[in-house]
Every structure is written in C-alpha cells, then in structure tokens.
C-alpha cells in the first residue's frame, strides 16, 4: 500500500507540471496587466512596477521564477489585496467552505435516500416524479436558478436576504451573528444543493438498480431477512462503494468556491474573489488560486483510490 501511494504521488508530478505550464502561458497570453490597467500611475512608477514584478523578463524566464516560488510554497503576491496569495485564499476560503460543506452534506444525504427509494420502486409514480425533478435540476443554468430563487424568496416573499453574508451595517455578535450568517446561507446552499442533486440521485438510482439485481440480494431475501435489512445492509453498502470515488472528486469543490453562486448571491467567498480578480487582472492571484485548485484535484484523485482500497475488501486484500 505504501509503495502504491508513493508511485501515485510520483505520477502526480507530470500532471501538475503540465497544469502549471498551461496556467502560466494561458495567463501570459492575456494582453494588458494590472499596471497598465491603472490610469493613475505615472510612466516612471509603471516602469518601476514592471521591474519590481519582473515583467521585463522573457516569458519563459518568468515561468521558471514563478515555478520556483511555487515549489517554495509561495503562490505569489496579490496585487489587488497587497497580500500574499496564500493569505488571500486563507482569508476567503472558509466562507466558501461552510456553504460548500452544508450543500455537500445535504446533497449526498438527499441523493442517497431518494436515489435508493426510486431504485427500489423502479417505474413507480414516485420514481417517475423523481426522474422528472432530476432532469429539471440538470437542465437549469446555475445563474438562472439563483436569480429565480432570489426573485421568489427574497424579492416577492421577502423571507430571506437576497445576498451577502451578514445584514448590511450590522455588528451582531455571538448567537445573533451565527443566526444572521445562517439566514444568508440558506439560498446559496439551496441553489448549490439543487444543482448537485440531479446527477448524484441518478447515479445512486442506477447503482442501486444494478446492485438489487445481484444474486446476493436474492440470497439475503431467501434467508428471510427484513426488506429494510436487505436494502440498507446488503444493497446500500455495495451501492456506496463506487460512490467513494465520486465523493473524493467533490473535495475540490469544497475549497474551490462556487464562482457563479457566490457571484449571484454576493457571498464573500473565494469564488467571488476569483471573479473580482478577473475584472481587475490580478494575475498572481488568479494563477496562484488555479494551481491551488489543480493541486487539490490531483490530491483528491489519489485520496479516492486510497479510500476505495480501504473500503472494498476485494481491493484491500490484493494489495
């Protein structure tokens, strides 16, 4: 197992290297930069800044400087925040994380339950209804769903705040503060859950349909076990196994922020910061954040394999 993990870690290197090349050269293709975009700067100040940020060097030299810094753990220096990129990410990632975590938990619990229920009652009215809802969820553009939800719950009904993380100008503390944040979280979490639930429900439905056709389910019934035990002990365990991989693939989303949803709901997370950085061309932040996400993606692919190996006895022994 140890050798296997080391081998996998080794295989990650070329992928990350490729990702760094792609990210750097894509950004360097974008004409214009932070310095040129600021009309208040004098020509001398611009020249100074060019020198300071190394813009006078050829592109590939700049790449190696950047890569060298990355390897030292330095993601760059955000021009907009005047802070190290790592620090900016650290400041904003947790507000993204709480929304992502809440919706991840909700999505999985709901998807597992209704996926299994519609598999067990395949072709029933419930199953058909779920299928329709799932198709609808998969066909809605995220920003449109966000707008509709704001229109209904915040504008027309006035039940919940339309955006932001806390009420404007409020300086609540303690439980009041938590309650305020929670209220602001409801709509973004709702939208993210609705977006994610479609694919996952279908996945569990298909998996479970596959599993309940298996011979060992028939054996479990022939033993005279209760149907609940047959489905949840014998069926669910086997249907959950391949989902471990999928779960690991969702990890980057926990830290990556939801660009569109955060933008629509004005949620101060890393996704919204990313969009801002776009409009003012804060490249160090954009590049640093993108490579950070690439790293997390590659790591979670590895985690997926390791988790799977631990959970499935068939893989466990072979290693």
């Amino acid at each position, binding site marked *: 197992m140890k050798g296997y993990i080391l081998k996998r870690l080794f295989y990650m290197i070329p992928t990350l290297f490729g990702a760094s090349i792609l990210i750097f050269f894509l950004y360097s293709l974008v004409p214009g930069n932070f310095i040129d975009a600021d009309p208040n700067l004098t020509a001398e100040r611009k020249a100074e800044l060019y020198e300071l940020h190394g813009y006078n060097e050829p592109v590939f030299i700049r790449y190696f400087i950047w890569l060298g810094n990355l390897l030292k753990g330095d993601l760059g220096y955000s021009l907009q925040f005047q802070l190290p990129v790592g620090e900016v990410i650290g400041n904003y990632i947790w507000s993204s994380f709480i929304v992502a975590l809440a919706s991840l938990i909700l999505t999985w619990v709901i998807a597992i339950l209704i996926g299994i229920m519609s598999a067990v009652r395949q072709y029933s009215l419930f199953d058909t209804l779920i299928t329709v809802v799932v198709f609808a969820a998969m066909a809605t553009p995220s920003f449109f769903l966000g707008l509709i939800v704001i229109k209904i719950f915040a504008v027309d009904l006035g039940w919940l705040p339309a955006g932001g993380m806390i009420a404007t100008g409020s300086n609540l503390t303690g439980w009041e503060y938590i309650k305020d944040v929670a209220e602001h979280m409801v709509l973004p979490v709702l939208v993210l859950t609705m977006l994610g639930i479609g694919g996952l429900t279908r996945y569990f439905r298909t998996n479970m349909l596959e599993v309940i056709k298996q011979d060992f389910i028939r054996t479990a019934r022939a033993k005279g076990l209760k149907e609940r035990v047959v489905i949840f002990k*014998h069926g669910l365990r086997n249907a959950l196994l391949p989902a471990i991989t999928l779960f690991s693939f969702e990890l980057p989303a926990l830290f990556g922020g939801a660009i569109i949803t955060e933008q629509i709901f004005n949620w101060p997370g890393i996704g919204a910061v990313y969009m801002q950085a776009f409009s003012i061309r804060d490249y160090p932040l954009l590049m640093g954040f993108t490579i950070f996400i690439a790293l997390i993606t590659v790591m979670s692919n590895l985690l997926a394999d390791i988790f799977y190996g631990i959970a499935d006895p068939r893989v466990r022994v072979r290693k």
Partner: protein
Amino acid sequence: MTTTVLEVKNLLTQYHTGDGVISAVNEVSFSIPKGQTVCLVGESGCGKSAVAMSIMGLIDPGAGAVKNGEIFFNRVDLLNIKKHELRQLRGNDISMIFQEPMTSLNPVLTVGSQIMEPIMEHEIISKKEAKRRALELIKLVGIGRSEEIFDSFPHQLSGGMLQRIMIAIALSCSPELLIADEPTTALDVTIQAQILDLLRSLKEQREMSMLLITHDLGVVAEVADYVIVMYAGKVIEEGPVVELFENPKHPYTQGLLKAKPVIGQRQEELYTIPGQVPNLATLKPSCFFSERCEHCMSICKEETPSIQTFDNEQQVACWLYKEVSIV
C-alpha cells in the same frame, strides 16, 4: 404413511417478457413427502427455477407473479399468508441454495456474519451464541480452520468452499425443506460429487426433505427418491427414480436418457433430441414437445395431453399412452 411436507397444486406462474406474457410454470402439481428427495429435471428455461422461486415467494414483482394454484407447506397455504409470515418461514423452515456460489454471497460482508444473519433473524439468541453456532456449521459442512474462514470475505474462498458456506447458511436454522437450485452446475466435476455427498448425508442426518433442481441426470440418479421431468413449463412425466430410469415413457424422457453417455458403451455419435425448445410466448394448445417428437400424431398438435397415472406410480402426459388406454 409418510407425511407430506410440501404440496404444490396447479401452480401457474407467469412472467412478462418483450414477446408477451409467458407461463414459466404451467399447471404444475407435485408433493414432497417428509425426508425424501424430489428432483426437478429439465432443460434451462423449462421453468424449474420458477417453481422454486414461486415456493419461496421470491419472484420479482416487476417481472412476474404466481397467477393461480396452491402451495401448502405443512398445511400452511404459502400463497395466502401475510408477507412477514412468509418471510419468517424463509431461511428458517424452508431454505434455499443457488447455482452461483461466487455471486450469491455479499462481497463486502464476512462469511461469518452472513452465516450468523439468519440465526439472529429467526431465533432469540445472543451474538456470542450465534457465532458459536456459525463456527459449528462451518465445521459441519466440512471446512476446517473455521475461525479463519469465519473472518474471511467471499472472494478469498473457492467456488466449492462458497457453496459449502451457502449450505451452512441454508442449514443454520435447521429447515424442514431445503431447495437446491442447480447447486453443483457452476462447480468442477470433482467438487460436484463432494457437494452432492455432503447434501445427501446432511439430509439424512437431519431428516430434511429436499427439492433438488437440476438438468443433470447423473445427479438425479445419485440422490433422487422421486423424479419430476418438466418441459416448457409443464410436468410431462414423473415417478420413483428407479422406475423412471428403467422404463421412461415420455419420448422426451427417453430422449434425455438416451442422450446421457454411459461409460463402457462407446457410441459412434451421441444422441441428441432434434429441434429446440419452443418459444413460450407463442404456445398454442398442443403437446409442447410435439414439434421435436418422433412419434408425433395429429392430436399432439391440437390438444394438450393431461397427466395419467400408471400402476407403478409413474405418471405421464403423452397422447401415445392415452390411445393405448382407450383401445
């Protein structure tokens, strides 16, 4: 007078297929006396397994259902008892083993926990006691190192071992009736004989009745007391094993026995029954075997023969013998 454990009367089980509704089990009647082994013989797709699944009440409601008939187990009407009552019989009084031991056990649970499961479900018993029983059962079905086997996962064991484990599970609550659906088909020939011996000796020790489903006449000759031959969902011949093997009456049974090679008698060519099994969805009233039968008469194409009893307890559904009795 022996008591009857299982009695099946006019069982009709139908499945929905792409071609339409088929009667996989068509007016089948038979009974199993206490302590006897009844063999259900026929080709794949003749409805043998559907009989077993009908008795167990395990037919997938999306695929088919028992449409008519009666199934009595110790005078309890299995088709008309409540779902949970039937469930309590399954694995407890009637248990079943299947053709594919490799896929019939849950891959993510240990063998031991799967043996303990029916015991815990059907009896009020502590976990510790159940484990002791499970270990005993593993020894009973002829596997040593029971502690080690108890903690292993199915993929770590061979097919023969897994079938022994399946038998252990089936026997865990000392059932009165064991249904074995092609228990040896998926195994190597040497293992087949061991499993059959095991089944036969366990049946005798525990005074169980057994319904053995097979297409293999070798197996039948070895273990059966009574044989039922099915063709296209219908019983076409039945009788005590010796009579049936010595004096098969139905042309299909004769064909089956002729097709079985006998050691010491080399034939130029193995006998085969010409033609193929009819499509069950398009059957009309007739003898279903008529198209492949060398003695086919005009009546065989028009009417389905009913079953008729001979002096030696043999029963046959064939027009050849009807005419004889009329004349």
